[in-house]
């Protein structure tokens, strides 16, 4: 297994003007793993996701997914290769219904052409019907089917987060990137989210990379954790190792590891 990781990030880095937001970052993810990515504010965690998904092209290093080099690919191609993500600041299609939000993720899996849609060929109807059925199935898994006609922007916060995960999953990823999915959730919602993450991981045979400030969540669900500080990887190991790691403690500057960050 370890000879052929699903995701292999090699010495990746990026500069924004003078700022080295991420430098010399290396990480291997094997099929089926759930790894946490933590670090203080501004450490470069979201930037790592942006590099993985093609939002930014790395200025140094290489990224291999499934043995294929993917750095420099535009985001939509990365998604089609099997990496999808959620965003730290929720990015739903606000004016669209919950159902349409999920349907959009199915977009590239459907095959009916523009031509057949404009002229309403049978392919259009069967294609759209399939998209609709699959999307509703998904919403059921996430307990969102009862609000499927609601506009995304009108959902309560917790449901918006869940919808974003549902949407990311609908795109059919092998690797799922979650950027602070529990941010702004109350303890009850967080607990449900943890269960949901474990559930989808088994159900969909997923590999997950999770950014989270909530240490309880991270320590609870992740097998391994990577710690970033000032764009540098300062530690990697099991939750136990991370908890005791002197550099991690230093990075959090006296903040007790395990404390919650709102």
């Amino acid at each position: 297994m370890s000879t052929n990781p699903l995701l292999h990030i090699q010495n990746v880095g990026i500069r924004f003007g003078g700022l080295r937001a991420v430098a010399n970052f290396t990480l291997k993810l094997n099929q089926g793993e759930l790894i946490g990515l933590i670090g203080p504010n501004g450490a470069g965690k979201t930037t790592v996701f942006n590099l993985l998904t093609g939002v930014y092209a790395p200025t140094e290093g290489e990224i291999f997914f499934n043995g294929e080099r993917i750095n420099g690919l535009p985001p939509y191609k990365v998604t089609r290769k099997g990496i999808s993500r959620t965003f730290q600041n929720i990015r739903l299609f606000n004016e669209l219904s919950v159902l349409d939000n999920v349907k959009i993720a199915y977009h590239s899996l459907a095959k009916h052409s523009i031509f057949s849609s404009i002229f309403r060929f049978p392919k259009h109807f069967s294609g759209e019907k399939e998209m609709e059925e699959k999307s509703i199935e998904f919403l059921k898994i996430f307990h969102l089917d009862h609000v499927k006609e609601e506009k995304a922007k009108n959902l309560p916060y917790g449901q918006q987060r869940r919808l974003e995960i549902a949407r990311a999953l609908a795109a059919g990823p092998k690797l799922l990137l979650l950027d602070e999915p529990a941010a702004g959730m109350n303890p009850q919602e967080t607990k449900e989210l943890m269960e949901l993450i474990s559930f989808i991981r088994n159900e969909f045979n997923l590999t997950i990379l999770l950014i989270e400030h909530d240490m309880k969540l991270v320590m609870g669900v992740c097998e391994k954790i990577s710690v970033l500080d000032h764009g540098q990887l300062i530690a990697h190991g099991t939750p136990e190792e991370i908890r005791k790691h002197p550099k991690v403690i230093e990075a959090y500057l006296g903040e007790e590891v395990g404390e919650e960050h709102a």
Partner: protein
Amino acid sequence: MEWIQQFFNGISLGSIYALIALGYTMVYGIIKLINFAHGDVFMIGAFTGFFAISVLNLSFLPALLLAMIVCAILGVTIERIAYKRLRNSTRIAALITAIGVSLLIEYIFIYFRGAQPEAYPEVLAKETYNIFGAKISSQSVLILCVTVILMILLQFIVHRSKIGKAMRAVAYDQDAAKLMGINVDNTISITFAIGSALAGAAGVIFGIYYTKIDPLMGIIPGLKAFIAAVLGGIGIIPGAMVGGFLLGIVETVVSASGFSLWRDAAAFIILILILIFRPSGIFGKNAKEKV
């Protein structure tokens, strides 16, 4: 010396573009709005100058000053009535409003005055100097002098005065500036006042140099000045100056090479090339959108 001649013509045209472009760039720098109505402020400046010279019998400098004051007031009025409410709306809503304001000024003006053009009175004795075999009119020299003086003044205001500091602070980060005790509303209004005054001056200079003015005269120079601002890097004051001069020279060269009908197209082609290949302009830095 045909080319030197064209170069000087280009500089004269360019200084008018540069003066208008400064207003575009300052306003964009501070509230990220393409103030489409800026070209019409320029037009009102030209007509105010015309009125001051032919009706009030003022000489050049007082007429110039009057036009600048009227335009400053007009600029602030537009900002307070129309743009202030748009601070939190989308850039596109702001852009459409600005287009609306521009057309409103033009057609209200035509409604009350008519669309007929006006011939600018001669306020300055016309002399021609011979420099390297090129004929340079006293007007070109004057235009250049006035432009340069106004630009130096502007640099002084922006970099040395307290209000200039406030302007730069608001442009950099509006919320932080507010926290530092800067009156953001007033600072924005003053930016409009200064930018509009410069457009007013450009209007008078345009009238004297090209002698014909009309209520729709602001549209094309307005667009060109905007192109100049983008060329130099929108939001950057020296960029607007350089962009203005550059565009003026390019246009005169295109005309002089026998493509005068393509002159306007040249400006738009420059705009599109710049937007596509270097949207931050000559002096700008490229920034990535944060995700």
